[in-house]
């Protein structure tokens, strides 16, 4: 091959943890009774907890972001808050608002992808988003445009949309120019209109009659700030939980189960649900007026108990995310510095933020030099595992007459209600039916 003198234009996007891992579903049926349902999830966080040891506190956001390609900001935010707590620092003011704005970007791109390409096809009877695209090109284009706008927010604030490089303990490395931020307003107004169309579209989907009573868990802001939760708050539940994040491990336990390499989470020994439905059920009063209005018009009551309607809740959260992003941009005043100084010290810190899929908990113990001695990371999808299993058990019991291949597909659909993270959870769904 001849080397040619002209320079090529080179673009590089760094890597994310690609779709990987195997998921498995094991169902044991005796006669007409479902004896056992086990959901296996691949667990990258376990690996990360180990290799974080000995790393500098400043590296936690960048390293943990690699756990997930869809929600890197969630990992960066939980990591930053935990490290900052350990070091006795609070990031407030405009930097706090910029963090919320960045998170809105992630919610937008994550929810848009799930709604349009992963979930909607189930309701419209399509095998996949691709099959749906041929007949519903306009809607799919809308979803891709929404995702693109979410990515634009992340690129502007985070430096790039995949594994943002601009996030650091204490704030950011570089502040975007005022002009750049203001230019985003037009795009966000366009996105808001598209998100309203999204709610109207999904509200009309046929929803199976299926209600699950379960305990929902989310953050809820306390004190003066009455905001829909993103980075801060106390842990609350539908069953009366009201807990500081620092006390998470006193009530939430991870148990090792023999059938899986994953650890499964319980709250006082019980399964629980995190994510958009949990957030909505516990914080609907904190949504923007427009988002609340859209929720009501879409037929969502004060609480949502039908997991299939999670798609409507995600659409409402899209509206909220655009409203919140616009609010922040319009009120934004550039801070003096892109970050607050954070000096390392020995100690432990916790952080819990609302990833698109639910609460993501981090804890770090640092030595006096700021080297990580111990790390604990609990992602939302693994916290939902037991509840997903419980739902599947009910679901399988009601559909035992179906042939195995059809039942597998229906189980996959049921699992999609939870928007399991493709990097953290089920990838290939292998159904093993043990009928005896």
């Amino acid at each position, binding site marked *: *091959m001849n*080397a*040619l003198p*002209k*320079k*090529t*234009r*080179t*673009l*590089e*996007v*760094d*890597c*994310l*943890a*690609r*779709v*990987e891992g195997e*998921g498995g579903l094991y169902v044991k049926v005796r006669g007409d009774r479902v004896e056992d349902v086990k959901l296996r999830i691949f667990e990258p966080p376990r*690996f990360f907890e180990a290799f974080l040891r000995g790393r500098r506190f400043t590296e936690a956001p960048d390293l943990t972001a*690699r756990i997930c*390609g869809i929600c890197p900001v969630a990992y960066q935010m939980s990591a930053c808050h935990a490290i900052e707590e350990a070091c006795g620092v609070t990031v407030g003011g405009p930097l706090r608002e910029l963090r919320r704005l960045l998170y809105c970007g992630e919610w937008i791109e994550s929810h848009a*992808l799930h709604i349009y*390409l*992963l979930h909607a*096809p189930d309701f419209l009877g399509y*095998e*996949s*988003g*691709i*099959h749906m*695209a*041929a007949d519903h*090109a306009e809607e*799919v*284009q809308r979803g*891709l445009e929404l*995702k*693109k706008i979410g990515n634009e927010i992340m690129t502007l604030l985070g430096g790039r949309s*995949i594994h943002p490089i601009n996030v650091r303990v204490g704030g950011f490395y570089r502040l975007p120019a005022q002009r750049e931020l203001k230019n985003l307003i037009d795009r966000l107004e366009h996105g808001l209109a598209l998100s309203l169309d999204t709610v109207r579209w999904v509200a009309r989907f046929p929803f199976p009659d299926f209600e699950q009573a379960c305990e929902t868990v989310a953050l809820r802001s306390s004190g003066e700030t009455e905001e829909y939760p993103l980075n801060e708050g106390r842990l609350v539940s539908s069953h009366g939980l009201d807990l500081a994040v620092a006390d998470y491990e006193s009530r939430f336990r991870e148990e090792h189960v023999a059938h899986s390499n994953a650890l499964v989470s319980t709250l006082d020994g019980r399964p629980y649900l995190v994510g958009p439905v949990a957030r909505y059920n516990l914080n609907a009063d904190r949504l923007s007026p427009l988002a609340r209005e859209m929720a009501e018009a879409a037929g969502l009551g004060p609480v949502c108990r039908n997991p299939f309607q999670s798609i409507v809740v995600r659409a409402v959260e899209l509206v909220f995310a655009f409203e919140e992003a616009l609010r922040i941009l319009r009120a934004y005043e550039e801070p003096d510095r892109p970050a607050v100084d954070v000096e390392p010290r020995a100690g432990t810190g916790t952080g819990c933020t609302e990833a698109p899929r639910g609460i993501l908990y981090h804890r770090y113990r640092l030595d006096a030099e700021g080297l990580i001695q111990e790390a604990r990371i609990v992602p939302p999808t693994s916290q939902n595992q037991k509840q997903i299993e419980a739902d599947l058990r009910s679901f399988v019991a009601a559909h035992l007459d179906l042939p195995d291949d059809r039942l597998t597909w229906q189980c*996959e659909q049921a699992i*999609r209600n939870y928007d*399991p993270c*493709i990097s953290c959870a*089920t*990838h*290939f*769904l292998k159904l093993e039916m043990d009928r005896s």
Partner: protein
Amino acid sequence: MAALILGVGNPLRRDDGAGAAVAGRLAGRLPGHVTVAAVPGGAAEILAALQGAAQAILVDATSSGAPPGTVRRFDAAAGPLPASFARASSHGLGVAEAVELARALGQLPPHLVVYGIEGEDFGMGEGLTPAVVAAMERVAEAVARDIDAANPVHYDVVHGEDGGL
């Protein structure tokens, strides 16, 4: 953008970095109208990268059971990519899905070729296994031949009946 070479995959998952390695091998060595890029994956990102390209060549790792280092080349205009490019679940949307999405939306570049390099090790860590390194170098050469400096939308198709090189 006249021509695009897009390496797809995650270099932190060993042989999954084959696509990015091809892009890295070609960066800076092709004429100015050729954009060389690498993306980790994700149908929406691949679709966005393809926008406006008259000619595009994607390079991705495959996991199909073929001997490691097997190279296959497909003309996406001719029909859907084989199942080995696709993920088993609709959760994971990669190259095959991106191509079919583009096709369904009428956004397929007029000329789109996909190279698949069969990987052996997709575990954690950097570095390609030897068979994949060799295949990567062959593919880089083939891609450079495909991109014609004088006429960006003309290229020679040199491959066996089964797409093998």
